[in-house]
């Protein structure tokens, strides 16, 4: 079983595909779930406090906007944990979206820079492209180790 980071980081379709192939998706939904169910923090809607952008300093300097660093405090640890990654570029908003272009640039850079197996794809806009898209993902996921690495 391989921990696979996804981009867009909140794509339900990518997350589901990874699970179906027996791997562990690293998606931001889980991080947000942990945030909003943390007892004692009351900063709705996401419970991100002024402390979180400081955690983001591990990934971006203080001159980088607080919104980028706040997002990186969620995404950065997922990249740290990743053993493989799938990046889908130019995706429709409904496929998954993190909202901030600067965060997206940094996320993709850190993923590529990590030296793990990365599959990069362009979002499909036709049936034929869609089939090819799923085929390439399945091929990539099949190539990843299935045994538990921990």
């Amino acid at each position: 079983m391989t921990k696979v980071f996804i981009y867009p980081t909140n794509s339900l379709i990518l997350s589901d595909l990874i699970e179906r192939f027996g791997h562990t998706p690293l998606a931001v939904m889980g991080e947000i779930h942990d945030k909003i169910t943390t007892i004692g923090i009351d900063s709705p809607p996401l419970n991100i406090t002024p402390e979180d952008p400081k955690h983001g300093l591990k990934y971006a300097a203080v001159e980088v906007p607080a919104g980028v660093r706040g997002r990186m405090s969620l995404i950065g640890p997922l990249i740290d944990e990743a053993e493989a990654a799938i990046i889908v570029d130019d995706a429709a908003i409904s496929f998954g979206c993190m909202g901030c272009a600067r965060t997206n640039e940094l996320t993709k850079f850190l993923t590529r820079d990590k030296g793990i197996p990365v599959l990069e794809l362009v979002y499909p806009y036709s049936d034929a492209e869609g089939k090819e898209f799923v085929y390439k993902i399945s091929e990539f996921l099949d190539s990843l180790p299935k045994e538990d690495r921990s």
Partner: protein
Amino acid sequence: MSEEDQVKVALVSCGSEFAGVQSQLDSAAEQVNAKLVYPEMDISSLDTIEMEFGLQVASADLKLMMARAKAVVEGTARVDGVFVTSCFRCAEAAIVRNEVRRYIHQNSDIPVISYSFTERTTAATLLTRMEALTTIARRKHLLAREKQTGLTVGLDSGSTTTKAAIMRDNELIGEGWVPTVNVVESARKAYDIALEQAGIKEEDVQAIGTTGYGRFLLGEHFNAQLVQEEITVNSKGAVYLAGTQKGPATVIDIGGMDNKAISVEDGIPGMFTMGGICAGASGRFLEMTAKRLGVEITELGKLAVKGMQAKVEMNSYCIVFGIQSLVNSLAQGSAAQDVAAAACHSVVEQIFEQQLQEVEVKEPLILVGGSSLIEGIPKALGDLLKIDVVVPPHSQLIGAVGAALLASGYVED
């Protein structure tokens, strides 16, 4: 809308909830009896908004900002005010934030305030913005006032000085200006001086307005009808004194210990920045320079106008290291007028670098506050920005005059 009603404020942001500032925004809104809401819009509008708005951006959340602004303008989302906000230091967001603000301002009569944040948002400046926004929503009738009527008083409790202005039928008839020591006692003193000059009795005053840092305390003590933050009051006061109540204007207020830069449209504040982080950009820096040069603060400006700042090298804007640079220059034989000019240039340069970066500079540029009386300051500012700087009469009384003007709205009520 009555003054007691809760103000519904549309939050148009590119993800303030990710920056750790959301609870501070909610808290500031709550303190002024406002509620932040996310304007509802159709998700499909995100596909077309860029071409409709005319601005193509890379961030999806910025498309969301534009779509939400459109929903507000078209009335799909019913709100009383709009708070447009994005991360500080994000160039793409700054462009969208400014254009969204302009779009809402030009296409609706809904008040809009723009703000850029870091995770270390200071509660006081945020609260001032929310207070200004809700004031514009609740007190439109007051802000539309272009003339002072009746007999009213404005009290401005500043960080360094306390000012009082007494106005009757659109004329300033009494003024008082004293150093702030104890907030209430200093205001009492300034008020008494103004009363004596005006030759009127306190019981004849029909309405009082208070502003500045001590506004709440003074409002309670003097039973004021209007207690108002200084952004709204100073904007109104500046365009009133400068005789430019219609159209755009930029107000720069350099006070004793802090300063403000406000972008104004029809007398109503839009984007603004508040200083207060560094004393090097305040009147205090000029006071220390005057003391070191052995001249009265009132003489510093005249001296500066005769000097050339370029002859003095300043390595820092800091009130400690900057003054040290000036002292070194004097020791090396620099003329006093050149040092005075360098001090004025240092103050306006820091305001330019730290505050005017976030505020559109539209003419007329109205300079107010105590430091505007130091002639070297408007000269240095004009030289730096390459535009004429307007210093209206009684510019040091800006807050007090603005408060007296706005308080006159309660005379007729």
